[in-house]
């Protein structure tokens, strides 16, 4: 590979770099710059205002309300999703452990895996619309069932007490399947002799799960955590389509705040970019924190 490699490097690298530079890098860089102006969108004027947008942001109750909701998502979404994911993956991959082969899946594992993964291939828009209909106060699936039991169901997405939790439930619903498959794949990679040894020692199912399986899966769980944390900070499309942040801002999230500020009735692009910058640093710190918190001694078994 000595001569003639430069023509190839140039032709192969320059077009992707250009595309990436124009549509990805430059917008990111511009966002930081715009966040220090008072630009109102389509007008040409944009004055430099320094950190004024960030100061406004600190006093903006709507933003804080949205951040509070994101914080709840950040706490609940990874916890419940990973919990359910681990639970179902364990059932599927080692639920039927009475066989002499040590650990085997329950019957019908393939079918379960197929079904659980459904939401993962559907678009968020479809998921949002389906669930809006399920939650529909009069003719939704949920209230029709409650009605059959003689209970008068609330108007789920129209009720500030429930709206946010309803959206959160859908977020969990749509994510669990993916983690079942992910953890399942990681479990398959654990050598069987480890389980045989543990079983010979007479360990129970739960001891095996908590002392063997989960420690060996720790790397995967950690990645899942980061990924879900980022999803929790985002979560905006689902909110926008299901409740649009309402009723009365009860289900608002920071992404939606930014979107509305930029593309809503007033086009406050400067302020919206400031929210974006805050989101950027929040995401970054969550990822770093998650990596730190989850760091443990790595277990090698290969």
């Amino acid at each position, binding site marked *: 590979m000595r001569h003639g490699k430069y023509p190839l490097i140039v032709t192969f690298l320059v077009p992707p770099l250009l595309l990436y530079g124009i549509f990805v890098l430059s917008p990111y860089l511009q966002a930081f710059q715009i966040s220090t102006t008072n630009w109102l969108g389509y007008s040409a004027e944009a004055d430099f205002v320094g950190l004024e947008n960030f100061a406004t942001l600190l006093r903006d109750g709507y933003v804080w309300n949205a951040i509070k909701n994101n914080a709840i998502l950040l706490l609940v979404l990874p916890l419940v999703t990973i919990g359910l994911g681990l639970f179902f993956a364990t059932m599927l991959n080692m639920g039927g452990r009475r066989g002499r082969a040590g650990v085997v899946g329950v019957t019908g594992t393939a079918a379960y895996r197929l079904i659980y993964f459904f939401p993962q291939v*559907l678009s968020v828009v479809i998921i949002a619309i389906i669930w809006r209909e399920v939650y529909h106060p009069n003719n939704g699936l949920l209230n029709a069932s409650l009605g059959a039991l003689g209970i008068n169901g609330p108007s789920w997405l129209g009720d500030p007490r429930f709206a946010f939790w309803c959206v959160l439930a859908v977020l969990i619903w749509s994510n669990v399947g993916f983690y079942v498959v992910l953890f399942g794949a990681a479990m398959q990679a654990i050598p069987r002799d480890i389980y045989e040894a543990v079983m010979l020692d007479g360990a129970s199912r739960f001891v095996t799960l908590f002392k063997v399986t989960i420690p060996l899966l720790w790397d995967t769980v950690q990645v899942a955590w980061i990924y879900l944390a980022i999803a929790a900070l985002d979560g905006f499309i689902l909110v926008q389509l299901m409740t649009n942040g309402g009723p009365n801002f009860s289900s608002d999230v920071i992404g939606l705040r930014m979107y509305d500020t930029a593309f809503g009735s007033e086009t406050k692009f400067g302020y*919206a970019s400031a929210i974006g910058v805050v989101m950027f640093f929040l995401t970054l710190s969550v990822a770093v924190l998650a990596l730190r918190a989850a760091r443990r001694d790595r277990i090698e078994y290969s």
Partner: protein
Amino acid sequence: MTVLDRAPAGAAPARKTDPAPRRETGVANAFSHGFLLLWGLLTAFPLLWVLVSSFKSDAEILGDPWGLPSALRFENWARAWTEANIGQYFLNSTIVVAGSLTLTMFFGATAAYVFARYDFRGRQIAYYLFVGGMMFPVFLALVPLFFVVRNAGLFGTWTGLILVYAAYSLPFTVFFLTAFFRTLPTSVAEAALIDGCGHFRLFFRVMLPMARPGLISIAIFNFLSHWNQFILPQVLMQGDDSKWVLAQGLAALAINQGYEGDYSGLFAGLTLAMLPVLVVYVAFQRQIQSGLTAGQLK
């Protein structure tokens, strides 16, 4: 091993020969099956409900959400396909995704190949520049992106969407494929070069075919994410609804049919959007599951 192991029945090397586990039943198993079944129902039922409702009349949908349709009303589907333009949006999505996927795969493969196989000044910097894009939320770029696309005269065009989809898929695609190209044996490449194969021919005739499994995984991943993209078209394809992609069209359909009370049309539209994806998924579930899990992990 095999010779020694003939004695106690309990210790036979049973890994593959073991017939269906004996007394697999018992409390624990009923328990696990119960939960598994419950979640399966919870996942599948809403989708099934949409399918069933798509055949109902509006009166049936409003009056009895749990009931079965009294007839298979395919006219709901026809109405959604033509009047609600689902057919048009489908076509638009197909055009955009075909373009963006081709572009992503080509640029992703060439860039990754160079990063994985050639040494040159600034390689590290360029690589991390690319891969760094994975870390940032799309949000941050949304506002400036709007103007970048508008100033380029690409606002509200498919070309604009195609370029933007491709640009935002590049970081992950390059990351994934660079790792993949590194795993391919160098000996083949060296042999080809000695035999007088040029660098370009080497890529197209030798390396690209060898990288096929990796290319397929990442293509599936990108296909689903492009097909399901919502936020980018929402920002970059405002206005002219004849060019909307499927996700936008569905969101609009949900709002309109809600006002008009045409619930059967909405459910039919949802079914039309959902079915092809699910059918393809069921057919290629193994590749899709492993592609997506390999994809989202690093």
